[in-house]
């Protein structure tokens, strides 16, 4: 049997190298591999975004991501989890976050991806700043649910 629940989390300051991450979720005992890429969107309503930039409380963000990945392993019976978040400026169409996971059965992979993203957005101390085409800027601090 393969080792269960291997997690990899990282904060990077450049474009996320997805090809490097792909082998990290592979395993002979999984039947399902899923990926989610969160990318910079150009339009929000009538506003046009030029780019996003992200900053983090790095040490705490790494700890929260590791805990989150470990919790996801237990909750969804995952074999592998990879979460990489990019910091600094992220141009339109490029990924700010890439999340991958694998599991013996597809349902767990399908269910884990949105749960991990929702928890990341709720708990991990990373902040997004919108840089709009008109030159204005705005930190995004969502109201707690």
């Amino acid at each position: 049997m393969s080792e269960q629940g291997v997690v990899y989390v990282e904060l990077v300051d450049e474009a996320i190298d997805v090809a490097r991450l792909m082998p990290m979720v592979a395993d002979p005992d999984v039947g399902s591999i899923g990926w989610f890429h969160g990318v910079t969107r150009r339009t929000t309503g009538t506003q046009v975004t030029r780019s996003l930039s992200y900053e983090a409380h790095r040490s705490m963000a790494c700890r929260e991501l590791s805990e989150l990945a470990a919790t996801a392993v237990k909750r969804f019976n995952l074999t592998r989890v990879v979460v990489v978040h990019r910091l600094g400026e992220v141009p339109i169409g490029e990924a700010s976050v890439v999340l991958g996971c694998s599991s013996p059965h597809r349902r767990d992979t399908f269910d884990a991806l949105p749960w991990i993203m929702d928890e990341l957005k709720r708990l991990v101390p990373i902040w997004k700043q919108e840089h709009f085409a008109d030159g204005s800027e705005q930190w995004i601090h969502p109201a707690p649910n």
Partner: protein
Amino acid sequence: MSKAVLLFASARDALDCDRVEIEIADDATAADVLEKLATLSPFMAELVPSCRLAIDDRYAEASASIAGARELALIPPVSGG
């Protein structure tokens, strides 16, 4: 005692520094630190009620003591992803 608190995102921009020193009682709690931070500017008064305090890389309960803390950080509502 004097304690440094790390600032991020709009809080850092508003105070134009990435850490702030506050004077606080030796037996202060996380809630006391937040209360103190809210007095620093009108912007902070508005922001801080939606923030959490982190002690040594972990979210702190309001009643948590900051005695012995190595690092305090003000965590505004997060928006990663």
